[in-house]
């Protein structure tokens, strides 16, 4: 009798652990133990990445709950058997093994094929959106982000131009259509990571790496370095500010006006140096 009680205790114990794990997962978002910010991705591709994540989460959750329910049942069942009854001993089942190999393999294959689309859009040039606006060159250096924008109405050039606009730790982008940055590093390897956009890309010395995304919302989002780059790595923080098209253009004019300030005059944003290019 005593053995049966112990067995049942363990059956309940293991089931309870699984139930607790599921419960914690369910309430996690309410306690902020989930994705950063409001929990949603704020870029179009980020939302697709989240969809993939949730799809996998569902598959994993169904499997987890199924396996634990079966485990609990078997433990309980075994503990309830009369003590004089011998346990059933089986030496494997070929059919069963084939099933539990093929089913997960099928699931993995499905995930591999299903995500290819998102991966290609994220990382393969041919699948990038047809039109996107190269907004800025972002240069990572120990321990800050230096940003160079083309002048209003001009294209971003690979080398600095006299009328470029500069900021530091402050990346401004328009919202509602695809934008791209040219990511570089001045010194060691860094990583451009905007958690709320689900965008992450290493910055590699000597390479100019394009990174694109499309903001879905106006707002300010944290940009951090995600590659241990030295002792100041932890404070290599900046912000990405998503603005409406009009605000973005207005901000750029304003920033250019401030940047070309000569201490005397600012002729309605008309910059002397800009009009005099050879």
């Amino acid at each position: 009798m005593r053995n049966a009680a112990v067995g049942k205790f363990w059956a309940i114990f293991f089931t309870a652990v699984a139930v607790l794990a599921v419960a914690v997962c369910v309430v996690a978002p309410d306690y902020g133990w989930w994705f950063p910010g409001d929990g949603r991705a704020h870029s179009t591709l980020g939302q697709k990445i989240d969809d993939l994540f949730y799809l996998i989460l569902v598959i994993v959750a169904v499997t987890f709950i199924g396996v634990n329910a079966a485990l609990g049942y078997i433990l309980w069942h075994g503990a309830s058997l009369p003590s004089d009854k011998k346990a059933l001993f089986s030496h494997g089942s070929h059919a069963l093994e084939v099933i539990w190999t093929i089913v997960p393999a099928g699931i993995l294959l499905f995930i591999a094929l299903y995500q290819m689309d998102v991966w290609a859009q994220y990382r393969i040039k041919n699948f990038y959106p047809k039109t996107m606006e190269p907004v800025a060159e972002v240069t990572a250096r120990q321990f800050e982000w230096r940003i160079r924008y083309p002048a209003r109405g001009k294209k971003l050039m690979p080398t600095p131009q006299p009328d470029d606009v500069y900021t530091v730790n402050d990346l401004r982008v328009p919202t509602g259509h695809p934008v791209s940055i040219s990511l570089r590093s001045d010194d060691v390897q860094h990583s451009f990571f905007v958690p709320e956009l689900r965008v992450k890309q290493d910055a590699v010395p000597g390479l100019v790496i394009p990174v694109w995304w499309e903001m879905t919302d106006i707002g300010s989002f944290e940009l951090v370095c995600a590659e241990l780059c030295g002792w100041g790595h932890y404070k290599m923080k900046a912000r990405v500010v998503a603005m409406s098209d009009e605000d973005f253009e207005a901000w750029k004019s304003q920033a250019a006006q401030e940047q070309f300030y000569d201490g005397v005059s600012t002729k309605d944003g008309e910059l002397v140096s800009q009009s005099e290019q050879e």
Partner: protein
Amino acid sequence: MIRMIMSRFLIKSAWIAVACLAAVSTGCVPNPSAEFAWRDSTTDLIKDARSSLQNTVNENFGTPDDLVAWERLPVNYGGIKGTVAAAPEGTELTPGEFAFSHEGEGEVKPGDTVLWLSGEMAGKEATIQSADAATHLISLKAGTAPAEGTTFAVNFGDQLQLGRMVYMKNCLHCHGVAGDGAGPTAQYLNPRPRDYRLGVFKFTETLATERVTRDDLWRVIKYGIPGTYMPSFLLLDDHETTAVVEYVRWLAMRGELEKRLGDELTDYSQTSLTDQYNKAVESKKAAEAAGDKPEAVPSMSSLRNTAKDDFKEYAESDYADTVDSTADFIAENWTRADDPASVIHPAVARVADTPESRARGRLLYLSDRTKCYTCHGNTGRGNGGATEDFWPKPGSTEKYDARGLHDVWGNPLQPRNLRLGQYRGGRRPVDVFRRIYAGIKGTPMPAFGGTVLKDEEVWDVVNYVMSLPFESDASPSPAPSTKMAAHPVQ
């Protein structure tokens, strides 16, 4: 049995003690208390002079854990200043209650501390029980309210405290607790983090003779110094930035007081005693060589005793005045820096950035009026002839061990490579104008404005300098002087 347990217990405690000692000696101490380090010139003073100086500085500035706000300095320590007002008509006030008026922004909350600034209770503090912003009434937890007209401050020193917090968290590891530019990471950096204690800052909007403004410090902290390890702290809240600006100014004033008083007291230093001793030995030798009767060489201890007595006299007569006048000098200088009249505003707007203007600027750059090329090189690469010479240390004939320029902190310094398009003091034309107009303080880059160059000419030079990063390197400008041709461009 009991004894055995006891001895085991003792052995165990011994092990714990050893482990603790090991932890302590390897630096595993929680929050070691921070200290303001002293200058070498201060620790070099004889004991009495040193303790007088240290007492003066400590009394007026405190320690990092116990700051003192010296009202005499133009530092915005924060808090609300107010005056006890007449009781509003028809209100009966309890003993701990009083009406008040205050200047500036801010809110008085229950639990805040009142510091009485005038009247019988000047210097004493009290805690606020309740405060009503509408009726302008405060009631104290204990004690009675002072007479009408008494001035007071609520949460005086808040801003300095916040500044210290921000500084300790973000700046200390480079700039050091005392702002001496010797934090633990400083030794790995080039250029070195700024040592604030001379009161000298490089990138200022003020005239060559003036100190740094709050705006300058604000900009440096917000945007960093590109091309150096001074990072941008754009994401600090504005009130944090304001507070750390005040803290940096406060540290600079503290450092200046220590430095200037130390300079006054050099007669009472070990170095001076050793000098006197060596001189006496030499004159004795010289006299012997000449066959004269040599004077006896005083012993070090007698020299020290004389210095001690001299200092005692000085301490009683002049020291207090010296402290006073030094404090006044510092306060005046820092107040004047924030006077709008100290800020450089070009007399004319930027001269149009035309090829002609750049050509004029180039001629000035290569002329012997400015001698820019001697430092920055003919092609602006920062490799002028001056970088090859041995330069004397400031105020002496002794030369630096290394070739090239040095700043007032003694660090070797390259003239800027003007082709990189990196402007440490900011890339606005007005920034570059001010750099050329007033020079770069603490460095050999001289001031040109007002004396050597007219404002229009400074603009021509600005236009030329700012065009350099976009000029093709293929055709280096011809050298005007034969000396320069001896240093070919790398």
